[in-house]
């Protein structure tokens, strides 16, 4: 911070770090300068010239605030007659060929061009020539439509596909005033990140085909939340209409996590929230059908049956499985209910890695789960090593962060995988091993490491890799905590743990696991696992041939989906199957009692992402019918038992989590701001 410079903008004196772009400095001090081509995440190109401002001493006319770094003593006027004339001139040029269809434009109401036009009055009356015409709109690909008449050629979309997603599919074609954005020979624009170009487009030229003309931006309110689709934990805003309908997900920039990007799966898969198929009331089986009942009726039925089963067969007759997409609060109450209210230790979560670890392997796995590196730390890595991990499949936005680390920060990417993955062309080095051979591959690296400088002079490929890429830190090791394609996963755990240790002896190392679901990390931290941890699986116990289990509570765990006959038979055999769900899933269909649950968008709570960052969910829309948050359901159910749970809200539950999970202890609920709180920053996790 010693490198501050003094500048004056519109009479306001400010101190800003040397080299800051003038636009950013102004923005930080509440001075608004119009922009089109500039975007904080894409960097300056200075192409549109809308951000022209007057700078004292300028020789060649006004300068572009977006591409000019501040220098000490700079005196800037953003609203002076010279600046205004320049800005208005550009606006007039922009509007020459721009259709005046704001009333029917998807961007109407949130368009900087429209705002500026209102502010300055329509400037195009001096243009008497015919406007440029294009077919409108054209289909750019499965997800995106393009209206070329509205396009202002800021080429943000082009730069996004070329520089961020690197699928390069949107390009500029032709030149001069014939320039258009398009694709090679009108091939479809296909990308896992296509939705971002809609958000980047400052006007209504690029639209999501799903959403075109469905809404007017001014009807919407944006409510902060976290994407529920994977463990990366991208921050989103949920756009809500009339307080009860989810219209779209927008990115909500968290530079620590998503850096403002979303993948298409996360962005476009939201309609389930509004679905008319959602469960709206508790249901009780009546022969082949279900009857709607009140919560009290449902709870009484469950508690009576459960009590008699427990009385007859003991606590091990009940198993509970919770979905790892539940909030920390939901999971914590679930665990409390099972262990403290009904007294069973048979809890587990799903989806989870199918691990059967020996005690030694469990310790290794726990070590690996500690001291995770921050996602943003990828930018500092010298080498990023993907060990049997494919972020594009599992946590897609991590792919973009890795590309950025390589492109902007010079990281080297090393990929070890039996097959090509999306990131392979980006790798400085790609190593292959036979499917199933992950552990052996890792061990070959470890022995090369241990051979030390001389040993690694060997000319085998592992030594070469170690010599070239692992000699110096920081090294980011990304692994898939499910160890896909690996037969002996326990062995792979040991090998990986040993490798990381050997690596640590040489260089700074950070690890990041790829996990299964939005709150997989929470489920681990809150210990939603069998009493012997990762050495068994309650799902196996429940579904196994000599299962003792007679009753099950499945919270969002759709075990029947796509399962074989044996599983269905086992679930059918249960004396009591209680299912908490959003939909009438295949599992719910087999249930005795179905309880309608609130989705992530309908409750207050937290998720913990794969770098162990706790992030807040808010109630964006009300849950349908009488559906409730998972924790609310279980708290209410507990009232029908002796050890009723005392919680009245998510805050209280969180405080209880802090009491029982030491790592979470320092984090007060209200300290979880818009960017979340990374647990590792506050305390090294010892208890995992």
């Amino acid at each position, binding site marked *: 911070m010693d490198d501050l410079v003094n500048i004056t903008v519109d009479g306001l004196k400010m101190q800003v770090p040397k080299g800051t772009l003038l636009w950013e400095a102004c923005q930080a001090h509440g001075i608004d300068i119009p922009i089109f081509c500039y975007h904080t995440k894409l960097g300056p190109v200075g192409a549109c010239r809308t951000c022209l401002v007057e700078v004292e001493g300028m020789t060649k006319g006004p300068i572009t605030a977006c591409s000019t770094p501040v220098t000490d003593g700079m005196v800037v006027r953003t609203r002076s007659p010279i600046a205004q004339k320049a800005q208005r001139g550009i606006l007039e040029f922009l509007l020459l060929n721009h259709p005046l269809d704001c009333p029917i434009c998807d961007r109407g109401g949130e368009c900087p061009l429209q705002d500026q036009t209102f502010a300055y009055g329509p400037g195009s009356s001096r243009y008497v020539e015919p406007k440029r015409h294009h077919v409108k709109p054209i289909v750019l690909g499965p997800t995106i439509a393009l209206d070329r008449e509205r396009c202002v050629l800021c080429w943000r979309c082009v730069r996004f596909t070329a520089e961020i997603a690197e699928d*390069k*599919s*949107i*390009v*500029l*074609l*032709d*030149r001069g005033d014939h320039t258009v954005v398009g*694709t*090679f*020979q009108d091939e479809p624009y296909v990308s896992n990140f296509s939705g971002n170009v809609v958000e980047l487009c400052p006007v209504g030229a690029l639209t999501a085909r799903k959403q075109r003309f469905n809404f007017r931006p001014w009807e919407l309110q944006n409510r902060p939340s976290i994407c529920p689709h994977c463990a990366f934990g991208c921050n989103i805003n949920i756009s809500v209409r009339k307080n009860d309908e989810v219209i779209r997900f927008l990115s909500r920039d968290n530079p620590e996590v998503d850096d403002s990007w979303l993948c298409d799966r996360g962005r476009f898969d939201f309609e389930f929230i509004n679905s008319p198929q959602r469960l709206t009331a508790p249901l009780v089986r009546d022969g082949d059908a279900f009857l709607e009942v009140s919560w009290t009726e449902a709870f009484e039925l469950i508690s009576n049956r459960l009590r008699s089963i427990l009385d007859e067969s003991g606590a091990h007759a009940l198993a509970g499985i919770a979905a790892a997409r539940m909030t920390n609060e939901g999971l914590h109450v679930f665990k409390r209910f099972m262990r403290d209210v009904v007294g069973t230790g048979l809890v587990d979560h799903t989806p989870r890695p199918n691990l059967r670890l020996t005690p030694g392997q469990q310790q290794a796995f726990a070590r690996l789960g500690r001291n995770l590196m921050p996602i943003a730390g990828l930018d500092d890595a010298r080498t990023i090593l993907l060990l049997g991990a494919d972020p594009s499949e599992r946590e897609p936005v991590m792919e973009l962060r890795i590309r950025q680390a390589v492109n902007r920060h010079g990281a080297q990417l090393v990929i070890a995988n039996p097959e090509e993955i999306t990131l392979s062309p980006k790798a400085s080095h790609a190593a292959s091993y036979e499917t199933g051979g992950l552990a052996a591959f890792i061990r070959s690296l470890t022995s090369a490491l241990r051979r030390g400088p001389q040993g690694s002079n060997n000319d085998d490929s592992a030594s070469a890799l170690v010599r070239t890429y692992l000699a110096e830190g920081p090294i980011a090791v990304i692994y898939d905590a499910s160890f896909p394609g690996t037969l002996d996963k326990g062995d792979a755990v040991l090998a990986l743990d040993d490798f990381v240790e050997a690596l640590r002896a040489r260089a700074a190392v950070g690890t990041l696991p790829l996990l299964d679901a939005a709150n997989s990390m929470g489920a681990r931290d809150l210990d939603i696992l069998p009493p012997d941890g990762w050495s068994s699986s309650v799902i196996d116990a429940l579904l196994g041939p000599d299962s003792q289990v007679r009753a099950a509570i499945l919270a969002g765990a759709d075990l029947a989906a796509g399962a074989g006959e044996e599983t269905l038979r086992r679930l059918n055999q249960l004396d009591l199957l209680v299912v908490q769900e959003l939909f009438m899933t295949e599992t719910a269909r087999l249930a005795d009692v179905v309880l309608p649950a609130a989705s992530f968008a309908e409750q207050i709570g937290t998720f913990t992402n794969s770098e162990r960052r706790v992030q807040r969910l808010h109630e964006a829309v009300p849950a349908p019918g009488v559906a409730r948050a998972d924790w609310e359901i279980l708290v209410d159910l507990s009232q029908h038992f002796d050890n009723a749970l005392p919680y009245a809200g998510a805050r209280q539950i969180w405080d209880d989590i802090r009491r029982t999970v030491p790592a979470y202890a320092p984090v007060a609920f209200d300290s979880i701001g818009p960017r979340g709180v990374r647990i590792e920053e506050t305390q090294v996790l010892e208890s995992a």
Partner: protein
Amino acid sequence: MAVLTDDARRRIGEYAALYPAARSALLPALHVAQNELGWLPRDAMEEVAELLGLDWDQVEEVASFYTMYYKDPVGTYVLEVCKTVPCAYLGADDIIDYVSAKLGIQPGETTADGMFTLFRVECLAACHRAPVMQVNHRYYQNLTPERVDALIEAARQLQLQSAGAPGFAIRRTWSESVENAQ
């Protein structure tokens, strides 16, 4: 589908080797491809992309920027008459009208027999020899209607003589002989 001859592919490879980065060979490579095919069809752009290790999008993005690459089929002989000052008022407009009337095509069009395409183009750096045109990117200067007649006649003759030969050979033979004749 491969549309370039082995010779063209080899020459593109040679160009790529000249530069520190293969992408620099994109403009030369497109010249080579167009020389063979007369214009740049999709297949040619794809093949150039493949040869230089680029994405096809990048090729069209670049090709569409430059006016000398033809994005649509053109005639065997492309007549490009300069229309900028001073050519404009030193006879270029008349030459364009003359060619247009003689061949029965407007600027931008190709004759029905696929022999000639006429374009009006910007300054060709030959203002002192106005009016001027390029035919298949060779200069023909100090144009008069008589000269244009001779050029077109020579082109037709050569086209007849070498019927069946690949386009590039025709172009070259013709350019050389007419140039020598001037």
